[in-house]
Every structure is written in C-alpha cells, then in structure tokens.
C-alpha cells in the first residue's frame, strides 16, 4: 500500500499518538482489503453511541492530541437534559454520556446526533467518496444516493475524519459496486414497514454481497422506504450497497446493475407470504405492552405527521408509554407547527438526539414493548426488553388498547 511521506510521518508518530492511532487503523484496513492508497474525503459520519467501546476510542485519539481534519456528523446517544426529567439513570450512566459529548466536542465533531445523515444532516453528492459509519446510513448513501462509502465502523470513520482520508478499496471502486445476486420482488410494498421486512429477508440472503432487486410491481420508494430497507438489510446481514432496477441511480437497467456482465438467475423470489412469514418469525410475543418505541432509524417529520393522523385524537392507554425518537430538526418542526404539543396531550412524546439503545430506557425492561423496527427489537433484546414488531398503524391501535394481540 502506497503512503505519501506525510502519511508515513503520521504513522511513525511524528504528529502525535492520536493521529498515529487513527492512521494505524486506516493502514490496517487498507492492508487487509488490498487498498493501493488513501484517498481524500470531505464528509464522514461517526456512529458515536455513548457506549464505552466507542467513547474509549474517541478519548484515545483526542487525548493523544488528535482533532478532526474534516468535521464529521455524528450519531445520537441520548438527550440527557430532557430524558433525566422522566427517567432515572445511575451516576455512571450519566457520566459516560457526558464523557462522550465532551470527547466529541474536543475532537471537533459536528454534533448532529442523527443516525440518518443521508436524509438531511449530511447528504453527499452522487459519486462522492465519503466515510460513513452507522449500518443503516451506509446502504442509504451508497444504494439510494450513489455516493461511495465502505461499511465503516464508528472507529474507522472517526479515524478517517481525523486524517481526512480513507483507504481506497471496496465500494470506492466501480467494479465492487456491481450487483452479485438477483432478488425478484413480487411482494406488495405498502409502506416503509414492508420495505423494512423486505430488507430483513434480503439481508439474510445477501450477507455482505450486493443485492439487485427487480420489482414485479412498479415502486416509488421515498426516503423512509430506502432507510428502512437498508437498516434491516444491515441488521440481518451486512449489506452496504444495493441496486433497485429502474429506481436507484446506478441501476438504470438490470445489465447496468450487474456492471454490464452476465445477469444471474434469481437467487430468490420474495412474495407477500415471505414477508408475512418473516414478520411472524420476528415477533412471537403478544400481550400487555408498557412501551411503544418508534424511531430506529430516527423518525422524520412526515412520520410524526402520520402518527397524528393515525391517532385521530384518541389517547395512549394509561399503562403504556409512547416515545418517538426523531431527528432534532423534525422535533423542532413539530414544535413550530404545534404538532408536538397536540401529540403530548394524547400521551405521545418525542425526543431528538436519542437512540433506542441507551440506558435511559431501562425502566421499561422486563416487560413487552412494541416497535415498527426489527432493528430496534434486535438491539433492545440485549438490554432485556422483548419487543413485538408491527407496522405503525397497528402500533398506534395497540398503544390505545395497551396490548398487542
């Protein structure tokens, strides 16, 4: 792997141990994936989490004198000011959150606290080389937008932001963006929830390969549809790039999606029944619910509007909490349009800058929750809260009854 004299000096530690660590990370990845060199990037997204592993890495770099060469956008941890009004956390949990914010402020990140940068807080150009972590963000920027990012971890993306470069391999190179397997989709995709379930099926089929989807019925996916699809394909698998024939920018034709090469026979045909079966497999639980949790990935303003429409003035059951986790800009818009106040009267609360996978939610653990996101259910399981998974309209009806049947 070729390194410039300046890059070699950083790797040798001449510019301090923080930048050296960052360069070691990029160099190790470059060697592993046979990169010929590093290339400059002007955008990075760091999936900071307020988890110890990630905060440890940021502190290691910043305490070693590193700051960011390009200001990366960041994922959420949790809104400590707002949520501590509702929930108890331990001193250690609050300390870790504060440590995380402090470390990322010091290293010079843009504290967007939003897990779907491709929708608003960091939208790359077509063909732009970037370093985006957050497993749901990477397939979005690659597949839906045609930007070029590898499946970065939070720590490799931070290393890229510190150096302002990323190793040139993988999805930065034309031939690696071509499709590997063909998936025929016959299922009817009514809303973003169906796209999510489809993504969950496709992720398991594809692993880390690039799926090419061809649709029997004409589709016209919106931002949330792409987001849900990619989030779930990167939960059941490690999909970071996909094509949708006649829909996504690098797949005007099926031949183009496969790079002009041979189009393989279909690896799978996905029908309505497959989506139903997947939903059943994912959500065995029914019963009383103590929480409806939405916003993994973060909800958009349009999704908050949809919640208002579905409630139609009805109220959340007294023994159930209803939380929407959204991009801070969407919460601000809801505030301005008085949607937030209106929903609060129904028992629906919203918070910006916050992830589902945080200690502030622990008071709900031990009981059944409900979400529209298999990804949410998957990661909450580790914290001891089982989740049923249903589409938004069913989540709203269940919230009103306080139970899911």
């Amino acid at each position, binding site marked *: 792997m070729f390194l410039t004299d300046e890059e070699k000096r950083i790797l040798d530690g001449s510019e301090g141990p923080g930048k050296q660590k960052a360069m070691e990370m990029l160099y190790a990845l470059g060697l592993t994936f046979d990169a010929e060199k590093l290339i400059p990037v002007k955008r990075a997204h760091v*999936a900071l989490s307020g*988890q110890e592993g990630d905060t440890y890495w940021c502190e290691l770099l910043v305490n070693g004198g590193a700051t960011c060469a390009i200001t990366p956008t960041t994922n959420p941890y949790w809104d400590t000011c707002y949520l501590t009004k509702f929930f108890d956390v331990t001193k250690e949990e609050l300390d870790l959150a504060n440590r995380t914010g402090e470390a990322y402020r010091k290293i010079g990140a843009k504290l967007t606290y939003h897990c779907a940068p491709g929708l608003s807080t960091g939208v790359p150009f077509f063909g732009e080389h970037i370093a985006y972590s957050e*497993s749901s963000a990477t397939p979005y920027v690659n597949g839906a937008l045609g930007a070029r990012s590898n499946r970065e971890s939070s720590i490799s993306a931070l290393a890229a932001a510190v150096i302002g470069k990323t190793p040139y391999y993988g999805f930065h190179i034309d031939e690696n963006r071509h499709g590997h397997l063909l998936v025929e989709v016959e299922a009817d995709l009514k809303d973003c929830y169906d796209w999510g379930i489809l993504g969950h099926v496709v992720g398991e089929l594809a692993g880390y390969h690039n799926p090419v989807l061809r649709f029997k019925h004409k589709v016209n996916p919106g931002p949330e549809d792409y987001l849900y699809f990619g989030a779930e394909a990167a939960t059941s698998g490690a999909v970071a790039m996909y094509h949708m024939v006649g829909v996504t920018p690098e797949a005007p034709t099926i031949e183009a999606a496969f790079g002009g090469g041979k189009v393989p026979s279909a690896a799978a045909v996905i029908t309505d029944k497959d989506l139903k079966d997947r939903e059943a497999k994912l959500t065995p639980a029914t019963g009383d619910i103590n929480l409806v949790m939405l916003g993994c990935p973060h909800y958009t303003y349009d999704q908050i509007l949809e919640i208002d429409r579905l409630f139609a003035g009805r109220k959340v059951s007294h023994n159930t909490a209803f939380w929407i986790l959204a991009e801070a800009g969407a919460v601000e818009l809801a505030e301005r349009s008085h949607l937030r106040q209106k929903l609060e009267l129904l028992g629906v609360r919203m918070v910006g800058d916050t992830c589902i996978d945080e200690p502030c939610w622990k008071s709900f653990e031990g009981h059944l929750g409900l979400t529209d996101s298999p990804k949410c259910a998957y990661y909450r399981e580790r914290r001891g809260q089982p989740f049923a998974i249903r589409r938004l309209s069913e989540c709203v009806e269940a919230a009103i009854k306080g139970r899911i049947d």
Partner: protein
Amino acid sequence: MSQDVKVYKCRKIVKGCAEGEAVVSRDAMCFYLTDPETGEVIERNHAIHGKSIANKILVLKSGKGSSVVQVDGFYQLWVKHNLPAAIILVETEPVIVSAAVMVECTMVDRMEADPYEVIEDGDHVEVDAEKGEVRVRKKAA
C-alpha cells in the same frame, strides 16, 4: 505438538499468537449479542447460541450488524478478558476488522483450506498470525 497436527497457511490481519479450543460458527456474528461476563452468545436462532467464545479460537463466517455496537461488543469482552483468543475469519468485513484492530484481538483470514472442512468444535487450534499459520490438532474421536 504431535504428528497429527496439520498446518495451514493463512494471512495476518491483527498480530499475535494464540491457542485454544475451537468454536466454529457458520453464522456471521454481532459481538454485542454476547454476554461480556461469560462470553456466551445470546442471539436467538444463532448457530452458536448458548456457547461461550471466551478465550477460544473462534472460526467465524463474518461480522454483521450495526457498525457501532460491534465495536462495543469487542470492547466489553476485552475489558472482562473474555474475547476469543484469536479469530479465523472466513469472509472478511471492515467493521469486524476495525474492532479487532482497536482491542488488538489476533485475527487471520485466507486460510489455505476451508476452515469449516478442517476445524470442528473442540479441536485444539494454534493461530500464529506472525508466521501466517494455523495449526490444528483434531480432538480425540
């Protein structure tokens, strides 16, 4: 080691030498879905659900899942001394590589033989990343 040890070439990803009992996962893994206190895999429907990977030689299909919790999964196992002693990857993927680099967990890939063909649960395996070798002694039949 005795003569029944088979030696296979491999490629170093993260340096180090380690030996131990093999645990073989035909599924990709998200390390966050392990119990840091025991190293036990807690993901439902996973190929090695309920087995511990702590201080074992883990033969692993690949990494999967979130790009941040994978890192924390490695970190939590690391501070509790319950990381695998070494990981032999079948399909190499950047997130798992960067997590292993951060905590310096010995990792190799590109084994010259299919690891699923030549390594089973309970075999004694040595991974020497520096020499680029995996040495396998089959468990007693």
